[in-house]
């Protein structure tokens, strides 16, 4: 396969996966009873596009399955078949099988044919007979085509394509089955005549009963860049006119169905977009990062400008301000390229809730909010699995069976609420259910059984909840294939930590549980607060700082060598950076420096530094790239003066306190 073909193939696969997602989400909204034509149409088009493209790449298994699928959808579309729960489940299952097939194509692996075959049998069983019969019958019912209306509008620079249109028109006339050809030529330009430009367009009407493909074949060599082609079948019932193809006449049917989509579906404003490889964007992010550093380097000279003559100084300052503004704007827009709506992760959930609740005979409503909240693509990719896991858990362990709920005075139908929103410098994702809550006594007992806790050990409620994140921990009485194997919550927490985020659980017996995930807005840039310890600069994530205080001598308490500070009525632990990092640097007397009060998760503590300096945005550079992970440090950054400064990892600092 040549390289170009490989690129097309990749694009096709990407589009097909998107198509599957669209099919899935539409199937889930498909109400039972008389089919909603609009929704069925959307599903049909997705399947059809997939089938069309598959022909180009010789994906025979895919063509066969989508073909049967189409037949079934077509019957629904034309109102011959009602949507039943069974139908819908089978259709959903076939989406899964299609996904298996596509994944196999993508990874060049053998296809699990047994699944494909059994799916085909299932679909055909619904169709009540062999697929071939039904399609033949359906074809017979199609209105008879008696000819085509063809419009050809060559672009201005059509001649450069070197394709002789007249020859094509002659060939059209010679196509088998075509009786008459009427060609009308019209002027296609309102501009002044230019000798190199093609200013003519052709309206052709052919009569005869030929397949659309035959007509498309004639114009195979034209593409939307050089000549716009539209072919409309003329049927006996002239009302059933449908624009079938535009752009490339011989294009895959995917092209055709898309056009049909715009023609028939409710007009929807769609933003145009292009596919760009992530590595290109990352390169750009890096470059903008450099620019930010260079800009802050320059801006330091702005302060020195006063020594110049007054006019120059003003101009220089103005210029520097401009650069700063533009750099900031550019940075924001580059970062926004990496941002994607969280709906990409959320969209998988309805299906999961649907499947799992069906299996467990539970009634569950999934409410999703804030699907348009944007998150970094990397975050999004790593977030999906943890979300799936928590949702499965909520459905499996959280929500009770309808009868149990009723007995407890709750509505039969449980609710799982998945929401995303911005709060401070974070993205917050919450999964809230109104189920049974976590049985803390059970968790405790289990912890004692597996030896994580000692009998009679006094632990806070919070610590008990934390135990669910332990590896190999599950309180489900029965291990189902949904959950209960105890692998998962530890992975969930690890994944979230890797993203620099935190996860918290609140639960109330009988009322339900809330899982709260907090993630940094972006992985590359941080709003930082600079602090000095001796001659070293450390950076605090600004969002974590609650306040900073000048320690008063009578508020400092020493307990077994550990220092506490009384902040209003609460004692908070103190971390001394020079001790923590083993640096013989900076002030030792607490009253001589500053206490930066920070909040990390639900922990509040004071970090002792000499002084605070400016606040600024910093570009996070990983220390792991050329070194390794350092405890207490989340990364490094390059300051305006070109030196490197360390960014504090407050989560790790806070762990040191316990």
């Amino acid at each position, binding site marked *: 396969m040549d390289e170009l073909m490989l690129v097309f193939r990749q694009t096709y696969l990407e589009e097909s996966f998107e198509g599957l997602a669209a099919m899935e989400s539409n199937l889930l909204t498909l109400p039972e009873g008389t089919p909603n034509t609009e929704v069925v149409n959307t599903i049909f088009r997705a399947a059809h596009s997939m089938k069309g493209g598959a022909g180009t790449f010789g994906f025979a298994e895919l063509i066969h399955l989508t073909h049967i699928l189409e037949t079934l959808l077509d019957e629904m579309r034309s109102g011959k078949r009602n949507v039943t729960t069974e139908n819908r489940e089978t259709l959903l299952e076939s989406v899964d099988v299609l996904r298996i097939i596509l994944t196999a194509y993508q990874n060049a692996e053998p296809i699990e044919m047994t699944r494909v075959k059994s799916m085909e049998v299932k679909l055909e069983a619904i169709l009540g007979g062999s697929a071939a019969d039904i399609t033949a019958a359906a074809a017979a019912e199609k209105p008879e085509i008696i000819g085509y209306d063809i419009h050809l509008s060559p672009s201005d620079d059509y001649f450069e394509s070197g394709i002789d249109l007249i020859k094509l028109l002659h060939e059209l006339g010679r196509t088998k089955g075509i009786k008459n050809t009427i060609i009308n030529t019209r002027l296609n330009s309102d501009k002044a005549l230019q000798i190199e430009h093609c200013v003519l367009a052709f309206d052709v009407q052919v009569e005869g009963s030929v397949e659309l493909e035959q007509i498309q074949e004639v114009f195979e060599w034209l593409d939307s860049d050089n000549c716009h082609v539209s072919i409309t079948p003329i049927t006996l019932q002239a009302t059933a006119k449908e624009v079938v193809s535009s752009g490339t006449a011989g294009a895959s049917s995917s092209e055709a169905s898309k056009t049909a989509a715009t023609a028939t579906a409710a007009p929807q404003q769609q933003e145009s977009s292009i596919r760009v490889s992530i590595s290109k964007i990352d390169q750009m992010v890096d470059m903008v990062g450099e620019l930010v550093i260079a800009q802050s380097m320059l801006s330091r000279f702005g302060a020195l400008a006063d020594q110049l003559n007054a006019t120059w100084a003003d101009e220089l300052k103005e210029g520097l301000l401009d650069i700063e503004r533009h750099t900031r704007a550019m940075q924001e827009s580059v970062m926004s390229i990496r941002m994607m709506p969280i709906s990409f992760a959320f969209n998988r959930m309805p299906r999961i809730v649907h499947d799992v609740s069906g299996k467990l005979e539970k009634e569950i409503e999934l409410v999703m909010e804030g699907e348009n909240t944007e998150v970094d693509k990397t975050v999004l990719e790593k977030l999906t699995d943890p979300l799936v896991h928590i949702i499965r858990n909520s459905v499996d362990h959280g929500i009770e069976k309808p009868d149990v709920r009723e007995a407890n005075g709750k509505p039969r139908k449980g609710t799982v609420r998945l929401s995303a929103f911005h709060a401070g410098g974070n993205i917050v994702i919450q999964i809230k259910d109104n189920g049974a809550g976590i049985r803390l006594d059970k968790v405790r007992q289990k912890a004692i059984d597996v030896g994580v806790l000692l009998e009679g050990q006094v632990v806070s409620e919070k610590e008990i909840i934390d135990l669910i994140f332990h590896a190999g921990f599950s309180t489900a009485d029965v291990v189902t294939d949904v959950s209960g194997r105890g692998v998962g919550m530890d992975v969930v927490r690890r994944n979230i930590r890797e993203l620099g985020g935190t996860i918290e659980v609140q639960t109330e017996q009988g009322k339900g549980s809330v899982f709260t995930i907090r993630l940094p807005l972006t992985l590359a840039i941080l709003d930082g607060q600079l602090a000095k310890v001796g001659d070293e600069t450390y950076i605090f994530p600004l969002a974590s700082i609650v306040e900073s205080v000048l320690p008063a001598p009578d508020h400092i308490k020493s307990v077994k060598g550990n220092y506490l500070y009384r902040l209003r009525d609460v004692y908070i632990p103190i971390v001394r950076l020079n001790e923590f990092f083993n*640096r013989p640097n900076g002030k030792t007397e607490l009253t001589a420096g500053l206490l930066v009060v920070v909040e990390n998760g639900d922990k509040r503590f004071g970090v002792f530094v000499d002084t605070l300096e400016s606040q600024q945005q910093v570009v996070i550079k990983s*220390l792991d790239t050329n070194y390794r992970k350092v405890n207490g440090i989340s990364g490094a950054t390059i300051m305006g003066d070109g030196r490197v400064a360390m960014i504090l990892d407050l989560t790790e600092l806070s762990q040191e306190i316990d």
Partner: protein
Amino acid sequence: MEENKQILTFILNNEIYGIDILRIQEIKDVEKCTPIPNAPEWTLGVINLRGSVVPIFDLRRMFFNYASEEGVIIVLRVENGGKSKVVGIVVDAVSNTEFANMTELQPAPKGDVHSAHVFVDGLVSIDGRMVILTDIDKINFFRE
């Protein structure tokens, strides 16, 4: 093995060492590093190398127990756990680029002080002088 390998020679503890020239990115003066918390004392810290954060290791402190304000940083590529990293090593001075005849590579004599150096590949003689060839990947810079 290719016969003639181009190497960069440098001085460490009054002896001549050689390193594969293809590993080397650049040579620069010693500059002030930002210390890495809780790192061994031979890890001087990190510097900003045109936007990259690069750790600097002082081979003199690491293997010969002496420190000096003088010195040169050799920035090079090392392989560590399947990953390629850029690091700087501090040596006393850089001397020359030479061709080492690899067919004449002698193993470092056993019991010799040099065999204590994990990174010694062997000895070659260039213009009558003994050069200690090094395999930089054998040094574990990243241990705690």
